[in-house]
C-alpha cells in the first residue's frame, strides 16, 4: 500500500484525517512526555558525587549493623570504608548504576542491596501492594454500589419518607441553619 492510499493520511476524508491528526498529536505528546521523563531521570545523574550518594543509599553495610552503607557510623567498621572506596572508584570510572550494583552483588551477595531487585521473585515485593490497592479500590466501589442498591430500612408508622428534591431541600436548609 502506497503512502497516499493510506486512508489515515488522506486529506479528503475529514473524519479519518481528524483521527490521523489526533494520532500524530498523541505521538507528539507521548514523545514530549518521554523526553521530559528522560530529562527528569537524567538530571544530575552525571555528577559523580550525586551518583555516589544515590547508589550508596541503595546499599547496605555488610558488617552486620543493618545500616545503609552511607549511614554506617562505626569507626573502625571492617566493611563500610572499603565498600565506600570501591563505590567511589566505580563511580569515578563511569560505571553504570547497574554495573556497580552487579559488581557489589557478586562480591558481597544479594543482601548488599538495600531493597529487593525488580527481577524474578523479588518483583513480588513491588507488585503485591499496588495490586492489593487496585483490588481493594475495586472492592470498595463494588461494596458502595451494593450498599447503595440496598432496600431502604422500614420506617415507623406515621412517618413519611422524604426523598429526592425534597430531601435535598431539607439538607440545604440544615446546611444554611448550621453553616457547617
Amino acid at each position, binding site marked *: 500500500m502506497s503512502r497516499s492510499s493510506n486512508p489515515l493520511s488522506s486529506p479528503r476524508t475529514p473524519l479519518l484525517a481528524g483521527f490521523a491528526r489526533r494520532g500524530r498529536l498523541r505521538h507528539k505528546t507521548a514523545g514530549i512526555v518521554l523526553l521530559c521523563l528522560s530529562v527528569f531521570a537524567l538530571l544530575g545523574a552525571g555528577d559523580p558525587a550525586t551518583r555516589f550518594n544515590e547508589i550508596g543509599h541503595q546499599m547496605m553495610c555488610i558488617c552486620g549493623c543493618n545500616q545503609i552503607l552511607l549511614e554506617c557510623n562505626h569507626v573502625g567498621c571492617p566493611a563500610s570504608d572499603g565498600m565506600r572506596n570501591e563505590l567511589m572508584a566505580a563511580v569515578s570510572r563511569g560505571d553504570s548504576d547497574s554495573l556497580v550494583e552487579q559488581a557489589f552483588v557478586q562480591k558481597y551477595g544479594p543482601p548488599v542491596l538495600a531493597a529487593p531487585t525488580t527481577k524474578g521473585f523479588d518483583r513480588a*515485593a513491588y507488585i503485591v501492594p499496588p495490586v492489593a*490497592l487496585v483490588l481493594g479500590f475495586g472492592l470498595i466501589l463494588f461494596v*458502595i454500589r451494593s450498599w447503595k442498591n440496598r432496600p*431502604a430500612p422500614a420506617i415507623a408508622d406515621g412517618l413519611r*419518607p422524604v426523598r429526592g428534591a425534597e430531601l435535598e431541600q431539607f439538607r440545604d436548609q440544615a446546611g444554611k441553619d448550621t*453553616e*457547617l
Partner: protein
Amino acid sequence: MAVLGSFALYLALALSVYCFLAGILALVEGAGSERLGETARRAGIATFAAVFLASLVLVICAFRDDFTIAYIFHHSNRDLPGPYKFAVLWSGQEGSLLFWSLLLGAYGFVLRLRYKTDPRLFAYASVVLAGVQIFFLSLLNFAARPFGLLEGPLRPDGSGLNPLLQYPEMVIHPPMLYLGYVGFTVPFAFALGALIMKYPGEKWIHITRRWTMVTWAFLTCGVFLGAHWAYSVLGWGGYWGWDPVENASLMPWLTGTAFLHSVMMQEKRGMLKMWNMWLVFATFWLAILGTFLTRSGIISSVHAFAQSSIGDWFAVFLILTLAVFLFFFFKNKSHLRSEHKLESIVSRESSFLFNNLLFGILCLTVLLGTWFPKITELVEEKKVTVSGPYYNSVAIPVALLLLILTAVGPLLAWRKTSLESLKRNFLWPTIGAIVVAVFLMITPKSWGSAFGLKPWQDISYFYSLMAIALSVLVTLTVASEFYRGGRVISKHTGQGMFASMVQLTHRNTRRYGGYIVHFGVAVVIIGFAGAAFNLDKEAAMANGDQMTIGPYTLICRSYTEDDAPNYASQWAMLDVYKNGKSMGTMTPVRRFYHASQQTSTMPDIRSSLNEDLYLVYEGQDDKNHPVIKAHLNALVMCIWLGVWIMLIGTVLALVPNAPAPVRVPSPARLKQAQAEPVTGD
C-alpha cells in the same frame, strides 16, 4: 528474694487459670452462678497483685545488686545509676515479659473494677484477658524465667545494662510502647466477648473506643519516643531505620488507627461491624506477631532479644488465637450484618472505607517488607535485604494518598455531600496549598532547607513538595472547620472567635480533638519531608581545624578524655558559627562502658524549628584526632512538635463533651412538626 518472686509468679498463674476456668463456667451456667463469676473476677484482680509482687521483687533485686539472679547479673551492675536499675525490669527478655504481664494485669485490674458498666460483657472480656495472661505467665514460669539463678560461681559485679539503653528516654519509651501493645488486648477482649455473646447494639464499641484511644495514644507516644531515642543515641543521624522491631510497632499502630476511624461508621451508621471486628483482632494479633518476630530470631534485627527459644510459644499462641477468633467469627457472623444503606460515594462513609483501605495497604507493605527476606529465603533460598529504599518507593505514594484523604475526609458529610459544598469548602484550602507549593519552588535555596524545592531534580524532592503541600492542605481544612464552626457560635452568642472555637471544641471534643490530631499528623509529615534536604559531612579535626556544613562552620577548640565509675568518655569541644555568628559550643561524646565493654555515642544536637545541627564523635584517627560527623537535618523538630499536638488532640478527644445549650422550639414550629412528622430514608 528469688524464691518469693518465683512463688508470686506461680501463684499468679494459678489465679489466672482459675479466673479463666471459673469465668467460663459462670458464663456457661448463666443465672445462678453469680458467686462463681465473682470469685473469677476477684481471682483476676489478685493475679495483678501477684504479678505486681513479682515485678517489685525483681526491681528490689536490681537495686540490691543481687547477682545470684541470672537476669540481674546480665542486665545490671553496681555502678548503674538508680533510674536505669529500675529500667532493668524491661531491659531483657524475661524482665520485659514480666513487665508485659504486669501491664496486662493492670489493664485487667481496671477492667474488673469497672465491671458494673455491663457485668456480662465485662465477664466475657475478663475471661479473654485471663486467657492471654495465662500464656504470658506460662512463659514466665516455664520458658523465660526472670528469677532463674546464675550458674557457676557468684560474680562480684554484673555485666551491665546495654549502653544504648542507658539514656533517659529508655526509662519511658518501653513502658509507653508496652502500654500500647498490651492495651490492644482490651479492645480485643471486648470484641471477642461481644462476638461470642452476640452482644446486641453498639455499646461495646462505645466502651472499647475509649480504651482504644488511650492505648493508641500510648503506642503513638511509644513509637515516637523510640524514634527520638534512636535519633538521640544511635548516632547515625536518623530516627527511623525500618528495622523489624520498628516495623513491629508500626503495624498495630496502622490497624489501630484504621479502627479508630472505621469505628465511627459502626457507632453512627451501624456499618462495618465485621470489618471492625477484624481490625480489632488484627491490631491485637499484629502486636503479638511483632513480639514473635523480634524474639524468635526468625528475622534478623539490630535490636536485642533475637535468637531465643520462646518463638515457638508465640507461634502456638498466634495460631491458637487466630483459630479461636475464626471459630467464633464464622459461628456468629450473621450477628454482624450491617443495617444501613449507603447513599453516595461522596460521603463520610466512603472516605472511611478508602481510609481503611490505605491504612490496610500501608500495613500490608510493612508486613510484606518485614517478612520478605524470610519469604525469599524459603522460595529461592536467597537472602535479600528490605530496608529504607523499598519502603520509600512503595509506602510513600500510599501515604500521600492518605494525606489527601485526611484533608478531604473532614469536609464530607455523613450520607451524602453535594459536589457544590465540597467545592465551596475545599477551594480556599486547595488554593492555599498550591500557593505554598509554588512559593517553596520559586524561593531561593539560601532561605533555608525546605526552600528552592525543584521537584523535577529528584524524586525525593517531588515527594517532599507533595508532602508539605498536602500537609498545608490538611492544616487549612482543619482550620476552616474550626473557623466555620466558631463563626456560627460567635454569631449566636456574640462571643469572640477564639472563645467560640473553644466552646465548639468543648461541645464535640471527639470531633475537634480528632481534627487537632490530624493537624499534628500534618506537622509530623512536614518533619518527615525534611529528610530530603539532609546534609552530612565527616572529618578528622585537630585543634583549630574547621568544617563547614550548610550555613554552619565548626571549629575544633579542644578534645579530651574523661573517666567515670560507669564509663570512660572521649569528647570534642567545637565552637559553632552560623553565617559567621557565634552559636555557642557543642560537645559530642563517645563512651566506653566498663561493665559491658561496649561503646556508645552521645551526639550533641542543636535544634531549631528549621533544622538540627547533629554532631557525632565517631572515634579517633591514626593521629588521635577526633573524627566528627556532622549532620544538618531539616525540619526534624516538626516531628516531635507534631507528636505533642497529636497527643494533646487525643487527650482532648477523651474529655467528655460539654452539654449543649437547651433550646426550646417555638410553638409554631412545634405545632408544625407534630402535624407532619418526616424522616430521611
